[in-house]
C-alpha cells in the first residue's frame, strides 16, 4: 500500500492567520479522501499548497516518491495532479466546448498544435466524451458568462478530469449545485475515474456526500488535522462535532 501523496509537516501563515500547522498526511493510490472543517480551517490552503499555487513556509509535498514542493501549478499538473475550484475558474468569454478543448489540448501528450485546427479528430472524440458524461451537450455553444452556476461547476470539474490524473483534488465540488443534483454529480465524477487508480481528495461541507463517497476523512481546525479515520469514526469524534459539524453528542 504505497502512498501516492505524502505531505510532511506543512506550515503556512498569512500574517497572524495560521492556515496550516504541521500537516502531515499520506494518501494511498486509489483512496477516496474527504477533507472537512469549518471555513478558514485550512482545507483550501492545503489544496493550494499541494498543487503548487502556494509555497509552504516549511514542510514537503511528495508525490509518488518525487518532491514537488514549491513547483509551479503547471509543473504539478504535468506530474499528473489535477484540481477543480471552489469558485469555478473558467474562461468566461469562451464556450464550454472551448473550455474543455483547452483542458484536452494543453496537456495533450503530443503537445499543443499551432497549426492543426482545435476541433480536429482526436480532440473531438475526447470532447464529445466529456460533454456526454457531464451532460453538457446542450450548453456547448453558450458563452460561460451566460450559464448558471451549477453548469459552470460541471464544466470546471469536467476540465479537471481530463488526461487520467493520478491525483484529483476537488475543492467543494457540490457547492453551488442544487441539492437534488449533488449525488448525481458525484456519481458522474466517480464514474469518469472508473478504471483508473486515481486518488481523489475532496473538500466538502456536505456531510452526506462525505459519508457516501469518502472511505477516509480528515477533519481540519485552525490549520491542524484534528481527526483522521473512517467517516463514521471522524464524524462521531467529539472535537469534530464541537468545531466542525456542530452536532450535539
Amino acid at each position, binding site marked *: 500500500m504505497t502512498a501516492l501523496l505524502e505531505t510532511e509537516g506543512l506550515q503556512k501563515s498569512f500574517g497572524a492567520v495560521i492556515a496550516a500547522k504541521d500537516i502531515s498526511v499520506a494518501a494511498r493510490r486509489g483512496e477516496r479522501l474527504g477533507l472537512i472543517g469549518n471555513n478558514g480551517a485550512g482545507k483550501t490552503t492545503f489544496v493550494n499548497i499541494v498543487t503548487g499555487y502556494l509555497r509552504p513556509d516549511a514542510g514537503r509535498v511528495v508525490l509518488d516518491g518525487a518532491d514537488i514542493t514549491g513547483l509551479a501549478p503547471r509543473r504539478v499538473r504535468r506530474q499528473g495532479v489535477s484540481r477543480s475550484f471552489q469558485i469555478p475558474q473558467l474562461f468566461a468569454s469562451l464556450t464550454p466546448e472551448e473550455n474543455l478543448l483547452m483542458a484536452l489540448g494543453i496537456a495533450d501528450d503530443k503537445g499543443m498544435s499551432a*497549426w492543426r485546427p482545435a476541433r480536429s479528430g482526436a480532440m473531438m472524440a475526447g470532447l464529445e466524451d466529456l460533454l456526454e458524461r457531464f451532460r453538457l451537450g446542450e450548453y456547448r455553444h453558450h458563452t460561460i458568462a451566460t450559464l448558471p452556476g451549477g453548469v459552470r461547476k460541471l464544466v470546471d470539474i469536467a476540465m479537471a478530469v481530463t488526461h487520467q490524473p493520478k491525483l484529483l483534488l476537488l475543492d467543494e465540488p457540490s457547492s453551488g449545485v442544487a441539492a437534488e443534483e449533488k449525488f448525481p454529480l458525484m456519481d458522474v465524477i466517480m464514474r469518469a475515474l472508473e478504471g483508473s487508480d486515481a486518488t481523489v481528495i475532496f473538500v466538502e461541507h456536505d456531510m452526506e456526500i462525505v459519508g457516501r463517497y469518502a472511505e477516509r476523512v480528515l477533519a481540519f481546525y485552525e490549520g491542524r488535522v484534528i481527526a483522521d479515520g473512517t467517516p463514521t469514526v471522524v464524524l462521531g469524534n467529539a472535537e469534530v462535532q464541537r468545531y466542525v459539524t456542530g452536532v450535539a453528542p
Partner: protein
Amino acid sequence: MTGRVGTLGAALLAFAALALLGRILPHWFVLVATLAFAKGLVALGLVVLMRGGLVSFGQGIFFCAGGYAAGLAMRSLGVTDAVLLVALGGALALILGLIIAPLLAGYRGIFFATLTLALSMIAYGILDKTYSLGGSDGLNLQAPTFLTYQPQTSQEVSYALFVLASLLTAVAAALCRIHFDSIRGLLSLAARDNEIRVEYLGASVRWVSGTNFIISGLLGGIGGALAALSLGHIDPDFAFWTTSGEFVFLAILSGYASVTAVFVAAVLLELVRSFSSQYFPNTWQGALGIFLLLVILFLPEGLGSLVRRRRRTAVKPAPKPVESVK
C-alpha cells in the same frame, strides 16, 4: 482539413484578385494600398497580441527595426532585392523580439502597454541621435529589384511592390487565421480570460505572451521593411508614439474576429489620412482618439464583428439544468 485548405485557397484567390486589380487601379491608389498593407501587417501582429489580452503602444520599434534593416542593407551591403530586404527586416525584428520578449512577458495591462511605449520611445531617442544611421533625417532607399525582375519606371516599381505586399498580406492573413483556429490560438483567448486556470491546465501564460509578442514583432518588421521600400525612406519617426498609436487604433477598429477586416480598415485609414493630413494636420491624433472611444463604446469587437457573426452568445436563456444531471 478542409478548413485550412479553404483558408489557403481563399488567400490565393484574394492575392490573384489583388494582383489583377493593381493593374487597373490608378497609381496613387496602388501606393496607398501598399503602405496600408504594410501597416496592416503590423496591426495584424497587434491583433495576435490583443487576443492574448495585451496591448502594445510600442509596435513602432519593430516597424522601425524592419525599415532600418532594409535601409541599411541597401546602403551598406548593396542589397537591392525587395524579397531579401523584407526578409532581413523581418529577421532583425524577430531577433529584437526574442531579446525583449523575456523581459516583458511577465507583465500585463497598462504595465505592458507603457513598457512597450517606453521601449519604442527609447529606440526613437537613440536613433534620433545616432548620426551613422542618419539621425533625425533617417535613410533613403532606392527602387528595389524583384528577384530577376528589374522594373524601369516608377509605375512598374509601385506595382511590383504592391504585388509583393499583397502576397505577404495574403500569406500572413491565412497563416494567422489557421493559427487562431488552432489549440495554441485558442490558448491566447483563454490566457486573456483566466491566467490561473491556464497555469493549472499545464501551460505558461508567460510563454503565451512571449511567443505572441515575438510573432507580432516579426509581422511588424516585415511591415516596416515594406513601408520603407514603398516610401523610399525610413526615419526615427517610425518608432515615435504617434506611429505606434495608429497601429493600436487599426487593431481596435478591426477587432479580432476577422483577419480581412484588419487590411480593409488599414486601406480606409490610409485613405482618410491622406485626405485629412492635407486639410486638418493638427487634429489627426484627436480625431483618432475620438474615433477610438466611439469604436470601444459601440463596436467593442471592432469592425470584424460586423463581418463574422459567430454563434457564441446565447440567443435565448440557457435551459434550466435540473433535468440534465441524472
